């Protein structure tokens, strides 16, 4: 017989863990299997160091040194016909190796090819901005800074893009709690009322099922209204739901639901 385990808090715990699940890996091909990519890679390798290169989901992936990023992009834009920078983003690998991986996705409309350029930067290492080459890098780099704290050199307007300017921390870091750190949890209270109002307003209620069922000082339950501050823990009276008061409303005709007419003829 299975040992008894207390199930009182079973809803708070994950009831299922997939112990035997192994994350699938995407198959990779060598760069030589595609002539266009092979030529591109040769052109890049002629001038810069390429740490790793392979084809994944029909896209060329190259890993370069972070200091070469501007040079590689310039080469790709001016000679290899990769006209568009689709997206760039940082990946937080701080826990593994204290570095960020930056992924840049490129598109060549002329060659009908996509490729990804990756480079890793250490935690406090700044990277060169790609904004002079691709305008779309502008917001992407600001977002990288806002969400991960990756600093970018020579960016024309290095400012947070999503979070407020006086926000503390970088929310997309793996170490950032989902419910926010202390500064985030009290952000609106501190900003609007000041820190001394924290005691009055109280911490955020993060339990979505929290109901202040018996609080008759702050809430009045529709259909069960009682005078201010009444103790309703023993039960509460039903009050009829009505649009208007019993004795009618000044200058307004009383609604009688019995007198209402259901209109069935749409063309009347």
């Amino acid at each position, binding site marked *: 017989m299975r040992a008894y385990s207390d199930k009182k808090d079973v809803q708070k715990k994950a009831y299922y863990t997939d112990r035997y699940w192994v994350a699938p890996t995407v198959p990779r091909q060598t760069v030589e299997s595609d002539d266009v990519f092979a030529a591109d890679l040769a052109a890049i390798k002629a001038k810069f160091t390429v740490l790793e290169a392979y084809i994944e989901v029909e896209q060329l992936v190259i890993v370069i040194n972070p200091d070469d990023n501007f040079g590689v992009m310039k080469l790709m834009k001016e000679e290899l016909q990769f006209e568009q920078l689709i997206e760039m983003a940082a990946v937080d690998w701080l826990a593994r190796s204290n570095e960020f991986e930056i992924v840049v996705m490129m598109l060549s409309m002329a060659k009908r090819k996509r490729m990804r350029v990756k480079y890793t930067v250490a935690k406090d290492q700044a990277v060169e901005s790609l904004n002079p080459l691709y305008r779309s890098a502008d917001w992407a780099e600001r977002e990288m800074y806002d969400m991960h704290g990756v600093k970018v050199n020579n960016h024309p307007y290095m400012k947070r893009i999503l979070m407020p300017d006086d926000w503390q921390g970088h*929310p997309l870091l793996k170490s950032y709690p989902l*419910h926010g750190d202390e500064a985030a949890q009290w952000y*609106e209270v501190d900003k609007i009322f000041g820190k001394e109002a924290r005691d*009055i307003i109280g911490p*955020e209620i993060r339990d*979505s099922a929290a109901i202040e069922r018996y609080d008759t000082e702050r809430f009045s339950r529709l259909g069960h209204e009682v005078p201010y501050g009444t103790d309703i823990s023993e039960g509460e009276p039903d009050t009829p739901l009505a*649009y208007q008061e019993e004795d009618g*409303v*000044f200058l*307004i005709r009383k609604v009688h639901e019995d007198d209402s007419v259901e209109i069935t003829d749409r063309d009347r």
Partner: protein
Amino acid sequence: MAQHQVDFTQSGGLPIALTTVDKLVNWGRSNSLWALTYGLACCGIEMMASGASRYDFDRYGTIFRSSPRQSDIMIVAGTLTKKHAEFIRRLYDQMTEPRWVISMGSCANTGGMFNTYATVQGVDRVIPVDLYLPGCAPRPETLQYAVMMLQKKIRAEKAGKAQRPKRLM
């Protein structure tokens, strides 16, 4: 005083209506609730639908205004982010008293499904709320009902008395 055998309280007795100042003022207030357009997310679409011809908020005297200085009621329709919290407070402070707030939908009530660092967990952390309207998103009928309930609440208030400071501050 002469006995005219006329029941003044009944319509048709004389072309006058006897009432109290409270009732007269509250009649005016409750039937011209000009609302500040405050669509923050998908609830805003339902709020717009309530104002449009099918549900027709104009029948209640609820006309949407774009300025807080012309509004009596703020319908907070949608998710309030922490970045936006200071602006909702500023707009609320710009509204003239008496003023009321309807918190429309789950996000405005409690933060709703956005249980994250960037969402205010209920607008009542920033501004005092008169009426919480559940739903995600509430139907226009529900918003209509909320406005009618708010009218009822206004009619029960003393007209001359300054509004009692609500929950916040």
